[in-house]
């Protein structure tokens, strides 16, 4: 249940698409002007975008806030075209005005200390925003190819690509297995479920306790009412959209989640 905290809660606003950049083949960065969202967002939160004013698709599409530019009253998302909704969004041209709901969900608990970030594919979309707020010493990023790699500010950057076009030829997990993760006070993990599961399996209990996971789930509302987006957690199902999307890694029932959605 959501706490009746007196905070006005998420808003529907008209956001103006300001810049479109195809950062890699099929991967787009969009900047939207929407001060109400830019002002309130925290790293790890997301927005729900109405990709079309037509009847279909019938629901919005969720995207992590990748960065905010408070002076401009703008925020950015980075997304990959995987289906109909993202295809429509990708075809938008600057100047287009869209209905955006947000900021939504609970982001990272941004504590003091050193951070290591581990991201696979679009999982790294939210890292730029996070790295502005915490002290990121290490980032381990993976992608299919150098083209799909998202940028990230970090003291040390380790990269794996499946085609070997940059960094290690292989998977993020290969790098994770070699890194000394006990060194860091906090870990942030985001990516495809099988990748996150492999990483989590490998982490010591101790490191797991310091790890936060940004989860994804199919969403209908994104603001807590439909109960559609649940993630199996150790104490039962939790809503990705309002209990998450960022969860303590140890709260998640990894085996259960993998079995159902992996």
């Amino acid at each position, binding site marked *: 249940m959501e706490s009746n905290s007196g905070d006005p*809660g*998420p808003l529907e606003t008209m956001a103006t698409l300001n810049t479109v950049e195809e950062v890699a083949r099929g991967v787009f960065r969009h900047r939207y002007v929407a001060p109400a969202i830019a002002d309130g967002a925290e790293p790890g939160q997301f927005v729900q975008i109405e990709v079309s004013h037509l009847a279909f698709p*019938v629901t919005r599409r969720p995207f992590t806030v990748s960065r905010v530019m408070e002076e401009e009253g703008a925020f950015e998302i980075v997304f990959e075209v995987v289906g109909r909704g993202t295809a429509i969004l990708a075809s938008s041209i600057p100047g287009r005005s869209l209905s955006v709901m947000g900021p939504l969900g609970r982001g990272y608990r941004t504590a003091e200390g050193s951070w290591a970030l581990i991201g696979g594919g679009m999982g790294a979309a939210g890292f730029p925003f996070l790295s502005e707020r915490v002290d990121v010493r290490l980032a381990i990023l993976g992608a299919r190819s150098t083209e799909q790699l998202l940028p990230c500010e970090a003291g040390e950057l380790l990269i794996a690509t499946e085609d070997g076009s940059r960094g290690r030829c292989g998977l993020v997990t290969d790098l994770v297995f070699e890194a000394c993760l006990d060194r860091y006070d906090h870990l942030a993990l985001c990516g495809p479920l099988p990748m996150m599961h492999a990483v989590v399996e490998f982490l010591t209990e101790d490191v797991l306790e310091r790890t936060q996971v940004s989860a994804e789930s199919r969403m209908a509302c994104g603001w807590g*009412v*439909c*109960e559609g*987006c649940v993630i199996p957690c150790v104490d039962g*199902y939790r809503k990705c959209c309002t209990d998450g999307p960022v969860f303590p890694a140890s709260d998640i029932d990894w085996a259960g989640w993998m079995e159902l959605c992996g």
Partner: protein
Amino acid sequence: MRLREPTAADLRPELLGTAFRSPILLASGTAGFGLELLRMDHLDGVGGLVSKATTLKPREGNPPPRIAETRFGLLNAIGLANPGVDSVLSDILPRLSGLPCPLLVNVAGSTEQEYGLVVERLEESDLPLGYEINVSCPNVAEGGMLFGADPAAVERISRRVADRTRKPFSVKLTPNEGSIVESAAAAEEGGADAVTVCNTFLGMSIDWREAKPQLSNLTGGYTSPTLLPLVVARVYSVSGSVQIPVIASGGVGRAEDVLELLSAGARLVEVGTLLLRSPDDVCRLTKEMEGLLE
């Protein structure tokens, strides 16, 4: 039953002992228990709110994925996930005192008895205006739509509820099995003050390349503005065969759709899937209808 030409008076309907400020109700399962909307200050122009289904014991609901969007609509198989009537009474209803519109609590059960027990408990709170008795959930193995398809069960459940409350209640019927007209008559006979026409149509979507269902529950409730003609037909048939008011549920995508359902005989109209997408759009419906009727 004649078709009606909706007028401004239909936008301020009086029924169930209440003067509604709008015919729009937020549909069960798409507005939670109202807490999120209350926080969002998003209930202007809305006539009332129907809560998520409430059962005797807490229910986890179905395993994920519970949601799948298809080419033209949405499938859901939530499975009546809710915190149970105790928690609704102690944790939720007390926080809803600021609700600017009437609340109907949607009640479900896996046995006929359970409906009576839940209503009995909910009577402890003054807050709800009344109840919506859900005998039509397509997403649970026990009870749900099986009750709704059997007029005798519908009548018994209605009677159980009628015996336990003096508040008004509507019985929400299924379009998937049995005869909705007969079930509506049974609800009326059992003492229902209204019928809700109707719960979701059973649907399914398959990723044929993988031979995998899109929902873990295999089938789900399908909602889409494209289903409006199906709901209009059922609202019309039921309106012509019972004396109690009909609450329409399903297929509303825009203000015209609400007016069409009112013309078919509905007195109140629920909006669900559109609410998930845009509470603002739903709040605007009443104003838009006023414009259309001018």
